[in-house]
C-alpha cells in the first residue's frame, strides 16, 4: 500500500480512501478512429470538485490528449487523444493519484436504456406542460360555473383540446403501443385500461366541445398521463442505475488476456479470444477463458470455480477453467473455447432455465392488475347499461360510464410499486447494495430459508494464520521464505509476520513448497512431504511446515476466517425463524469447522454445481422459498434457480448476473439490511395497493351514481396519487 502513506493521494476532502494501484494491460479497450483514440474508464473514489479537477487536469497534461471529461455522478471517464499515447499511461496517471480505475466497454443495452429514459422524461415534460396549462383553463371554467357565457366556455374547451390532444397523443403513445402489442397477442396489461380511459376521455371531450356541452375531460386525460409517466420514469431510471452499477463491478475484474502471436505477446480483450489461441497467464492473474495447460508448473486457486479452498497443483495437460487464479509460476496454455462459451455451457443453460422460471414470478402489481382490469371494465359496462335501462339518454349514459373509467384509472396503482422500489433501492444503493431488479425486493421479503455458500461468502476466502505463542520466533524465520511467494498460505504467513527481510535465491517448487539457503543452512517451507514429515501428510487441513537443516519441523495451522458479522447474521436469521443452511463445494472438515463455529446443524460439503441445484429443487418441492447467497461459478446455477439470490461484490460476474442483488464490503451485515429493507418495502407496497383499493371503493360509487364531474375526477386522481407517494416516502427508512 504505497498510496496509503501519501497524503495527497485520493480525494482531497477525505471522502473516499485512496485506492491501491493495480496494473493490467488495458490497451485492448482503446477504440481507434481517424479522428483519434477514445478510451472509457470507470473511476472509483472521485467524490468532490477537487477530485474532478485533479483527475481531469493531470490527464489533460498528457501529450496529445484533446478531451478528458469525468462524469462525477456515475464515475465514467471519457478520454480522447491523438498520437501514440498508451492507454496504460492514462490509467496509470489516474491510479497514481490514488483513485481506482478500470477499463469499461460501453454496451448496447446501456445506450438503449438511456434513450428509453430520455424518451420517458420528454413525454413526462410534455404531459406536465399540457396538464398545467389545461388545468389553468379548467379552473376558470369550474370557478366561472353559472356565470361564464356559453361561447367563452366553448372557446376555453377548444383551446384546452388544442393543447391536450397533441400532448396526449405524443405522451400517451408509450402506453398505446404497449397496450396494442399485448392486445394483439390476446393478453391484457395495465396499459390497456390506461389507453382506453385516455382515448375515451379525449373522444368524449371532443364531442362535448363540438356540441357545446358543460363537461370536458381534457385536463383529466393529460393529468392521468403525467402521473403515470412519473411512475414509468422512476422505474426506468432505477433499472438503468442498477444495470450501470453491475457493469462497474464487472469492469473491475480482469478482462484482458495475453495472447501469443508468433513470438510476440499481445494484450487483447477476453472476447477476442477464439478456441486454439495460445495464451500466457502471469502469476496472480485470473483466467477469463478455459485453457489446457501446455507449459509451466504452477498452482491454481479454484475457490471461485469449485469452492475448494486449497490451491491445486497444475502441470502440463491439466485443464483450468475461467475464474481460477494462477498463483506461482507463469503458464502457457491453449484456449479450449472462446471466452463467451468458456463460462461453461452447462452453467449457461442452467442459468437460462432458472431465469425462465423466475420470469414467471407474479409481482404484487401483476396480481393487483389482474383483479383490477375485469372489475373496472365490468363496472363501466354495467354503469352504461344501468343508466340506459333507468331511462337516461345515450349521451348521458356514455358520459357517466366514461367518467367511471377515468376516475378508476390506475394512477395510484401505477405509482404504488415503483415509488416504493425507488426509495428502497436508493437507500440500499448508498449502503453499497445494488438491486438488479425491482421485484427482487418482493421476492427477498418472502424468503423463509437461507442457503449460504461457504468459501468467499461466509468466509473471506483467504486463509489466516492460527496464532499460537510458540510460533513467534519460527514465524519470523519462515516469513523470510514466504515473502518471495504468491501462494495464499505464504501470503497469510507474511500478513501475520509483518514487514521484514527476504531470503536470497528462494526457489519455489509448485505443489511442494519453498527452499532457500540461509547462512549455509537449508531451510524449507511447504507441505508435510516437503519437509519429510510423512506421518502427518494425510491431514488435509490448511497447514504449512517449516524446517531448518535437520531440526524437527514446525507446523503452522491456518483457517479460512469467517467474514465479520457472519455469526450475527446467522444468529439473527435463526431468531426470526428463518432456516439457515450451508451448501459448499469444499472439503468435509473445512465445512464442518465453519458450521460448528456458526452452530449451523444443516450443512452439506463436497457439493458439485449439479448437487447444489438438486438440493434447491428439493427445498422448492418442500415448499420452501429459498434465498441463496453465493459467489462462485459453481453457485451460478443455484443462484438463478433460487426464489431470490444475493452475491457479494467479489463474486464472478456470471454469479452476479444470476443474482437479484449484489452487496459490497467485507462484512455480511448488508444481508440483514437487504432483508429488512425488503420486508419494509413489501409492507409499504401492500399498504399502497390497499390505499388505492380504498380510494376506488369511495370513488367508484360516486362515479357510477353520476356525480363525477371533471372537478371531482381531478381532485380524486391527484389526491390518491399524492397519498400513495407520501406513504412511500414516509419515514421508517432511516435505519437503512
Amino acid at each position, binding site marked *: 500500500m504505497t498510496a496509503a502513506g501519501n497524503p495527497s493521494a485520493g480525494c482531497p476532502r477525505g471522502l473516499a480512501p485512496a485506492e491501491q494501484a493495480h496494473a493490467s494491460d488495458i490497451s485492448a479497450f482503446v477504440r481507434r478512429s481517424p479522428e483519434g483514440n477514445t478510451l472509457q474508464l470507470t473511476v472509483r473514489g472521485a467524490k468532490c470538485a477537487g477530485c474532478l*479537477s485533479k483527475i481531469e487536469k493531470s490527464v489533460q497534461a498528457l501529450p496529445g490528449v484533446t478531451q478528458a471529461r469525468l462524469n462525477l455522478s456515475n464515475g465514467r471517464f471519457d478520454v480522447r487523444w491523438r498520437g501514440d499515447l498508451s492507454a496504460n499511461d492514462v490509467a496509470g496517471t489516474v491510479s497514481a493519484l490514488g483513485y481506482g480505475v478500470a477499463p469499461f466497454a460501453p454496451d448496447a443495452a446501456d445506450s438503449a436504456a438511456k434513450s428509453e429514459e430520455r424518451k420517458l*422524461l420528454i413525454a413526462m415534460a410534455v404531459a406536465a406542460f399540457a396538464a*398545467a396549462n389545461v388545468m389553468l383553463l379548467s379552473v376558470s371554467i369550474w370557478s366561472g360555473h353559472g356565470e361564464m357565457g356559453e361561447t367563452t366556455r366553448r372557446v376555453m374547451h377548444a383551446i384546452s383540446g388544442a393543447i391536450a390532444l397533441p400532448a396526449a397523443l405524443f405522451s400517451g403513445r408509450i402506453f398505446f403501443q404497449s397496450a396494442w402489442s399485448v392486445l394483439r397477442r390476446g393478453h391484457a396489461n395495465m396499459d390497456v385500461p390506461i389507453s382506453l380511459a385516455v382515448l375515451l376521455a379525449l373522444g368524449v371531450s371532443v364531442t362535448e366541445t363540438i356540441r357545446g356541452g358543460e363537461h370536458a375531460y381534457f385536463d383529466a386525460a393529460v393529468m392521468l398521463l403525467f402521473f403515470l409517466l412519473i411512475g414509468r420514469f422512476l422505474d426506468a431510471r432505477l433499472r438503468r442505475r442498477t444495470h450501470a452499477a453491475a457493469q462497474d463491478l464487472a469492469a473491475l475484474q480482469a478482462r484482458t488476456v495475453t495472447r501469443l502471436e508468433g513470438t510476440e505477446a499481445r494484450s487483447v480483450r477476453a472476447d477476442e479470444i477464439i478456441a486454439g489461441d495460445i495464451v500466457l497467464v502471469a502469476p496472480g492473474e485470473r483466467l477469463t477463458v478455459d485453457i489446457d495447460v501446455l507449459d509451466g508448473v504452477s498452482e491454481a486457486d479454484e475457490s471461485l470455480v469449485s469452492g475448494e479452498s486449497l490451491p491445486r497443483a497444475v502441470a502440463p495437460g491439466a485443464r483450468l477453467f475461467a475464474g481460477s487464479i494462477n498463483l506461482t509460476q507463469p503458464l502457457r496454455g491453449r484456449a479450449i473455447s472462446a471466452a463467451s462459451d468458456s463460462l461453461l455451457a452447462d452453467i449457461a443453460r442452467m442459468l437460462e432455465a432458472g431465469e425462465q422460471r423466475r420470469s414467471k414470478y407474479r409481482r404484487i402489481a401483476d396480481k393487483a392488475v389482474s383483479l383490477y382490469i375485469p372489475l373496472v371494465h365490468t363496472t363501466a359496462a354495467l354503469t352504461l347499461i344501468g343508466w340506459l335501462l333507468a331511462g337516461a339518454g345515450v349521451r348521458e349514459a356514455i358520459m357517466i360510464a366514461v367518467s367511471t373509467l377515468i376516475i378508476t384509472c390506475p394512477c395510484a396503482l401505477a405509482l404504488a410499486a415503483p415509488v416504493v422500489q425507488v426509495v428502497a433501492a436508493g437507500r440500499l444503493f448508498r449502503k453499497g447494495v445494488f438491486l438488479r431488479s425491482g421485484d427482487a425486493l418482493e421476492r427477498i421479503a418472502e424468503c423463509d430459508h437461507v442457503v449460504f455458500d461457504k468459501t468467499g461468502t461466509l468466509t473471506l476466502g483467504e486463509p489466516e494464520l492460527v496464532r499460537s505463542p510458540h510460533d513467534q520466533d519460527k514465524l519470523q524465520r519462515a516469513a523470510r521464505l514466504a515473502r518471495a511467494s504468491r501462494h495464499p498460505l505464504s501470503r497469510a504467513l507474511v500478513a501475520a509476520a509483518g514487514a521484514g527481510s527476504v531470503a536470497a535465491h528462494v526457489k519455489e517448487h509448485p505443489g511442494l513448497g519453498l527452499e532457500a539457503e540461509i547462512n549455509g543452512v537449508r531451510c524449507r517451507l511447504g507441505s508435510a512431504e516437503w519437509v519429510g514429515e510423512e506421518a502427518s501428510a494425510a491431514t488435509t487441513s490448511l497447514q504449512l511446515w517449516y524446517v531448518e537443516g535437520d531440526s524437527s519441523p514446525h507446523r503452522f495451522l491456518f483457517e479460512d476466517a469467517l467474514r465479520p458479522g457472519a455469526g450475527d447474521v446467522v444468529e439473527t436469521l435463526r431468531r426470526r425463524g428463518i432456516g439457515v443452511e450451508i451448501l459448499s463445494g469444499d472439503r468435509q472438515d473445512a465445512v464442518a469447522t465453519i458450521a460448528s463455529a456458526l452452530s449451523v446443524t444443516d450443512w452439506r460439503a463436497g457439493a458439485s454445481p449439479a448437487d447444489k441445484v438438486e438440493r434447491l429443487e428439493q427445498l422448492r418441492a418442500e415448499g420452501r422459498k429459498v434465498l441463496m447467497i453465493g459467489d462462485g461459478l459453481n453457485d451460478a446455477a443455484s443462484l438463478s434457480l433460487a426464489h431470490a439470490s444475493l452475491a457479494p461484490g467479489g463474486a464472478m460476474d456470471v454469479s452476479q448476473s444470476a443474482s437479484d442483488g449484489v452487496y459490497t464490503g467485507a462484512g455480511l451485515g448488508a444481508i440483514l439490511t437487504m432483508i429488512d429493507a425488503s420486508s419494509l418495502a413489501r409492507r409499504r407496497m401492500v399498504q399502497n395497493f390497499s390505499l388505492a383499493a380504498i380510494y376506488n371503493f369511495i370513488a367508484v360509487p360516486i362515479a357510477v351514481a353520476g356525480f363525477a364531474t371533471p372537478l371531482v375526477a381531478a381532485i380524486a386522481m391527484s389526491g390518491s396519487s399524492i397519498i400513495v407517494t407520501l406513504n412511500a416516502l414516509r419515514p421508517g427508512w432511516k435505519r437503512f
Partner: protein
Amino acid sequence: MEMLAFLIPVALMLGLVGLVSFIWAVREGQFDDPDGAAARILIDEDHPAEQACK
C-alpha cells in the same frame, strides 16, 4: 374579457418556451451528470486544482 384573447396566448407561449428549453436541455445531456455540474462550479480555473476544496 377581451384581455383573454391576449393573455391566454401569452401564458401558453411562456409555458411552451419552458417546455422547449427543457427538451433541449435533456437532449444536450445537461442532466447526465448532476453531481459533476454541482462540483465544476467550485473549480477555480486560475489556481491550482487542490485549492478548490480547501
